Structure formats: structure tokens, C-alpha cells
């Protein structure tokens, strides 16, 4: 390329890129999109590194998607004075992460384990891949990756168009309506209004989702599809379940032996989902023995009138206002089980109780 030719081409490219980016950002904002952090292994690893914050100032949460929606982190932090480190992973069992924390001699803090029976007791090999990748990434992070994350965080906090789930090239292609191929599993599409991720890894159902029954039906349809798929899998045998009980008991014992505290939580579900769960995975067979065998306290949402009647918009996760309410009650229930939050603001002790 000649000097002048290249210069003009370069300037044109710059102008076009700048014009596109401004228009692109403004367009998506006008469509109601807001900041949505990429909830991948990079953000997870950043949180995983925070479990060592002083153990008397931090509570770590592991589990599946429900605790990500149902725990309102600002409310938790305001009421307890503790930092909430959210390590739960959507669609995954918390067991690989529990094993990772139990094996980590430096972790001696408070741990809340969210139990979604269908995932918690599922066959391990299917459920270990994604958590395993996150753990590996955390352990092998290079200084360069840590530095890149800081720049990325800065950009993601300001630009809506950096929504990797929905506005990246692949996110956009996924939405272009190409029909699924018969016989090939394709991850069902969740509308962008269903959830947004905060930097703390909290998932929040968007206001439009609460009023749009079509969107809700789209998501409940996805749950039904997953339920149909689960029916085709052989149910866990008694031995499988006992193996989970024993594994969890051993991991919890390791954390306790170092001075850590552990509690199980069964977060709310409602409608057909709860009916199916209570029929297929009754608490007498799973939840109650889990607490008994591991000798660990637990909080089941059905045990407390104030948390037993939430209506989840898509049967499985709480709306944001309910998440705030649930978190408030959760703090109370956990304290009633003997946990103490040393950094709890004195002025809130009275209100909370």
C-alpha cells in the first residue's frame, strides 16, 4: 500500500469503527439493555480468589443457579457486614467446588451450600466439566490474565455492547432463528430479559420478564425440556445417593476441622417445578438424610412460613424484590442456627431481629 493510500484507508477505518461503536451502544441501550457481566471462568476465578478474605468478614456461597438469583448480595452485605463471595454455577452441582474448597488448607471461612436436588445428586461425570474448568483456570491464571481482567472489568462496567451472552458475534448468531437439527442437543435459548449478571455474580431477573408471560413461558418451556431429558436418564441409585452423602460429609468435616462453618440451604421453587421436585426428590429421602449424615444445619424454605410461599416467575428463581426479602430472612435463619456475624452493623441488629 502506498503511504497516502494507507493513511486514507486507516482514517476511514477509524471513523467507521468509531461511528459503528457509538451507534451500536446507543441502539442496544435504546432497546432496554443494561450492563451484563460475562459470568465465565474469568469472573468466577476473581471471586474464587476472594475466599481468603479474612474469614470473619466473608461468607462463601456455592450451589446452582437458585442461590445466584435468590441471594441479594447488597442486602446480605448490608445486614451482616460480611462480604458475599458467590461461587455458585448455573446448571451445575456444587460438589466439585466443595471438594476444591475442602482441599484448600487456606480456606477456613463460612460456607453456605445451596442444594438443588436434581443437580446436587446428579451423576458426577456429567456435572464436573464446567466447574472443573473454572477451578483449573483459577489455579493456572497468569499475571497477564489477571491484569487483562482488570481492564475488561473497567470496560464491561461501562459498555452495554460488551454483553457476551447476547451481543457478541456468537450471541447474535444464536438468535438468528436457524432451526435446531433433529437429534442434536442444542442448549435452549434463554431470553436476555431473564437475567443479568452483576460484577458480584448475582443474577437478577429483569423487570420486563415479570410482566411478559410469553417470556416466562419460554423459560418454563426450557425447564420442561430439561425435565424430559432428565426422565430419560437413569435415576441415581441408593448407592449413588449414599456416595454423595458420604463425600459431602467428608468434605464438610475437612472444612470444619480447620475452624470453618458450613450450612445447607434449600432455596425456593414454586408451581409445577416444586410439585415435581417434592414428588421425585422428596426431602425425606434427600434433604433430611443429608443434614443427618453430614451433621450439618440446614435451612429449608418450606420450614419457615415467611419464605414458604414465594411465587417464582418461572417456577425456579425469585424475582429481585423477593430475593431481597428472602435474603433478609435468610440472614435471620442463619443467625438462629448459631452463626455470628462479627461485623454486623450495630444499628441493624435491632431491625433485623
Amino acid at each position, binding site marked *: *500500500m502506498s503511504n497516502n493510500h494507507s493513511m*486514507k484507508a486507516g482514517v476511514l477505518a477509524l471513523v467507521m469503527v468509531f461511528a459503528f461503536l457509538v451507534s451500536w451502544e446507543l441502539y442496544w441501550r435504546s432497546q432496554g439493555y443494561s450492563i451484563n457481566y460475562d459470568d465465565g471462568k474469568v469472573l468466577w476465578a476473581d471471586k474464587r480468589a476472594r475466599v481468603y478474605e479474612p474469614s470473619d468478614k466473608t461468607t462463601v456461597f456455592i450451589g446452582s443457579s437458585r442461590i445466584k438469583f435468590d441471594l441479594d448480595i447488597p442486602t446480605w452485605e448490608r445486614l451482616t457486614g460480611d462480604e458475599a463471595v458467590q461461587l455458585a454455577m448455573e446448571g451445575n452441582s456444587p460438589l466439585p467446588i466443595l471438594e476444591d474448597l475442602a482441599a484448600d488448607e487456606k480456606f477456613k471461612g463460612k460456607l453456605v451450600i445451596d442444594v438443588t436436588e436434581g443437580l446436587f445428586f446428579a451423576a458426577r461425570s456429567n456435572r464436573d466439566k464446567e466447574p472443573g474448568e473454572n477451578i483449573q483456570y483459577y489455579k493456572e491464571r497468569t499475571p497477564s490474565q489477571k491484569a487483562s481482567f482488570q481492564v475488561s472489568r473497567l470496560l464491561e462496567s461501562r459498555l452495554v455492547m460488551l454483553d457476551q451472552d447476547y451481543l457478541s458475534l456468537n450471541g447474535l448468531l444464536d438468535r438468528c432463528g436457524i432451526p435446531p437439527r433433529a*437429534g442434536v442437543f442444542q442448549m435452549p435459548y434463554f431470553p436476555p430479559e431473564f437475567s443479568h449478571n452483576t460484577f458480584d455474580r448475582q443474577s437478577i431477573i429483569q423487570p420486563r420478564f415479570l410482566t411478559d408471560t410469553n417470556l416466562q413461558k419460554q423459560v418454563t418451556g426450557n425447564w420442561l425440556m430439561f425435565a424430559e431429558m432428565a426422565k430419560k436418564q437413569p435415576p441415581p441409585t441408593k448407592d449413588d445417593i449414599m456416595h454423595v452423602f458420604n463425600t459431602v460429609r467428608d468434605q464438610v468435616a475437612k472444612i470444619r476441622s480447620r475452624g470453618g462453618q458450613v450450612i445447607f440451604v434449600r432455596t425456593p421453587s414454586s408451581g409445577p417445578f416444586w410439585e415435581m421436585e417434592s414428588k421425585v426428590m422428596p426431602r425425606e429421602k434427600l434433604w433430611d438424610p443429608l443434614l443427618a449424615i453430614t451433621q450439618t444445619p440446614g435451612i429449608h424454605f418450606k420450614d419457615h412460613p415467611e419464605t414458604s410461599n414465594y411465587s417464582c416467575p418461572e417456577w425456579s428463581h425469585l424475582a429481585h424484590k423477593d430475593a431481597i426479602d428472602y435474603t433478609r430472612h435468610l440472614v435471620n435463619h442463619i443467625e438462629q442456627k448459631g452463626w455470628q456475624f462479627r461485623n454486623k452493623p450495630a444499628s441493624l441488629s435491632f431491625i433485623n431481629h
Partner: protein
Amino acid sequence: MLFNSYTFIVFFAVLLALHRMPFSWQTKKLNLLLASYLFYAVWNPPFILLLWISTLVDFFVGKKLYYEENKRKRKVLLLVSLVANLGMLGYFKYGSFLLENFTALCAAVGIDYQAPAASIILPVGISFYTFQTLSYTLDMYKKRSLPEHSVLDFSLFVTFFPQLVAGPIVRPNELLPQFKVPRVATRQQMLNGLFLLSLGLFMKVVMADSMLSSSADTVFGATQALLPGDAWLGVLAFSGQIFFDFAGYSTCAIGIASCLGFSLPDNFRYPYAAVGFSDFWRRWHITLSTWLRDYLYVPLGGNRKGAGRTYINLMLTMLLGGLWHGASWTFVAWGGLHGLYLCVERLLRRKTPTPPAAVTEEVVETYPEPTPVVTQTASFAPAFMRTKTVNLFFGALLTFFLINVTWVFFRAQDFGTAWRLLGSMFGLNEGGAAVLTNLAMIKVALVTLLLFTSHWLLRNTSVLAVASKLKWWMVGAAWAVLIILLILSQDSSSSFIYFQF
């Protein structure tokens, strides 16, 4: 540090600013050296020690080798360098592999030997910089060029960050002279460099990672037999992924060097338009294939010791070339298959008349490497493939088909997977499963079509040459599209595949 990371953007902007400030050339070179060490150290800081060992050993041994006349002492000095360089490479890259094979061998002869568990981390780019420093020592041994007297220049030759971890593998006489005179990019070099950097990142982030990688992962990760269409599309996806990933890195490296005022050799010249396999190796990973030619194939005797030895030398070179890529027998099989292709092609060529335009092997073996003009006419392909455009096209298609077969061994994690996939590709497995979605199939098919067509159309030219012939606004618009798609892809966390080699 990855080129496709935010850290690199900051790093490069600061370095570029420093490089254009009115410092002395010595200071600028020192900046480049420190930046190169930083670039490497942010992966795994302790491995910087290996670079220093390699640098110091080859600097001092190389100089002594050049001036030493005593043959025995020269051999000892050469041995010191080989042991230091290949010893580190052997330990870090092949240690576990050798131990596994030794254990298997012991078991085969009835010895119950349990190897201690080894967990060796592979230093990024060790195969690349080892070959680069070795070329200096071997050149000193052969007295092909003069020894380097500046530790700073030599350290920079070993460590120059644009090509440190994944090539191009640069020869001493290509890079060391460039450190002797002050270099700051002209406006043209800067613009060309930025264009190539954008293009390289587009190839890596958009094409390799966003469009192709998941389909390749799905197909090569399948544990059951597949439908032929799925198997082929998975292999084509990897074929495109490995090209876009590796050529993308080289394009970035050349672009970055250009922005700093340096020039690096081409590493890829539209390899999927190759007609025949010797043509393929003059287009694919050129700096490795010429390294293997000059430091392995020719010293083994090349084609000078009769037909039989020529075939043996070809096979040995390609088998070791395969092993260079990774410590696994599947890589050796990949190299072996390429060796076999080259032997068959050579045999065919000897049995068919050679048109006058074809370049002879003696020319191909000439050092330094052939010029692009020679490359476009040179081919070991049989004569019938080289006469008409339509024949050339079908020759390129046939070559592409056979190259895809080799990629199965390159990508498969074990032979079981490779055989199963080959069986699926050729319809030998019953009851194959469908694993790719419609969207994935469309993406792979379109990208493969685009890839093959662009290679065919550009096979005798270069991107910069084409760009210079287009209207400025067309280049500007194309450049903008590259950058916009790059930003939209948003994936800045994937390593380049060749880092693991």
C-alpha cells in the same frame, strides 16, 4: 501475554510510545529487551531463567565455536550447546512422554517398573526459541555467518517478543543485522503493521475461536461414531482453526514487528491452495520447514546420497517434525503421514516428465530460502497437476483433502479417537451420531468455502499487494469490518494453539 488480550494493548501502546521517543538506539534496544522479558514473564515468571540460560550458553559457546580451530574442541562446544538446549526441551516437553514409554517398554518385557508421578509444566514457546538459538550455534559451527559480539543484540535475537513464543522462527542473519542500525517504523511500516495486526487478530479471534473452535471440539471430543457429514465438518473446522490460529499469530507478529520498524519473514503463503505436499510445506509454517530442511534434512544427506537415502531422510525429517509439535505418538503419525505423502509425490514426479518451468530440488535446497517468485512455480507435484488451471485447482483440492486426513492425527487426543473419526469420515462406522447443530454446520461450511477460495485466489500474491491495488476506501471499509467483527467477538481469553508446542 496474549496478543488477543487487553493487557497486550496497554503493553504495546506504552512500548510503541517509548520506541518513538528520542532515546539512544542502545536505550531503545534495552527497552525492547526488558519488554520482551516482561512479555514472557507474565505467563510464568520462573521460566524466564530458561531463556537466560539459553541466551548465555549460545552467546558464549557460539563465539568460541566460530573461532576455535581444534576439531575435537569444536565438537565438545557444539555438544555443550546441544545438551543445554535440547536437554531443557527434552526435560520439559518430552520428560513425561519418555517416562511413560519407558514404563510401557518395561511392562512389555515383563519388568514391573512404576515411574514416579511427574507433573512437568511446559514453558510457553520453548520449541520455538530453542530452534532459534540452535540455528545460531549451528551456523557458528558451520561458519555460515559471523558471531555476534553484543550480548544485548544477541539477547534480543533470542527474546524479541513478537515472535518469541510461536514464531516465525527467525535465522540469525535475518534478525541480528536489524539490531545494528536504529529503527523506527516509517508511516508506511506503521500502517502496514497495524493492518496486519488487525488481520491477524481477526483470523485468531473471529475465525478460529468464534466460528470454528467449538465445532472442532465437539467432533474431536465425541466418544461415539459420527455421521460422515459431522465427522468431515469437524475435521474441516479444525483445519480452518489451526490455520487461522497459527497464521493469525504469525500475521500479528509480523505486524507488530513492522510497527517497531523491524521485518520478520513470512510464515504462511496460502497453504490450502498448495498443489502437492512439497508445495504445501513451502506455504505452511515456512520458517519451521526451512529450519528442518537446512539443519536436519540437508545434513542427513538430503537427496545427494541416492534415491533410497532420500526417502529415508524425508521420512526422518517429517517424523521428527511431527514430534517437534508435541510429545505424543499421534504427532509422530501426523509427521509420518506427511513424510509418506512427500515420498509418494517424489516417486510420482520421477515417473512423470517435468515441464521446464518446474523448479528442481537443488534450487529448493538453496539457502537462503526461495523467493516468492520461485515458490509460485516450484512444485514437486506430478506434471499432470501443473499444466492447466483446472488441473491445478483439482490438484489443490486433492491436496487439501489429504491434508485434512493428516489433521485427524494431529488433533485427536489418542489413536482410538483418530481411527474412529477416520472410520466415520469414510462411512465405515455403522450408526453414526449427529453432533453438530445446523448453525455450527453452516458456520463451518461457509468459513471453509471462504478459506479455500481466498487461498486459491491469493496463492501467488499477498494481502498487502492486493490491498495496494484496491481503492483506498475499499481497503478502509474492509479494515473497519475486520475491527468491528473483532470487537463483536469479544473473546479475549483463548490461547493460541501453537503456544503448547
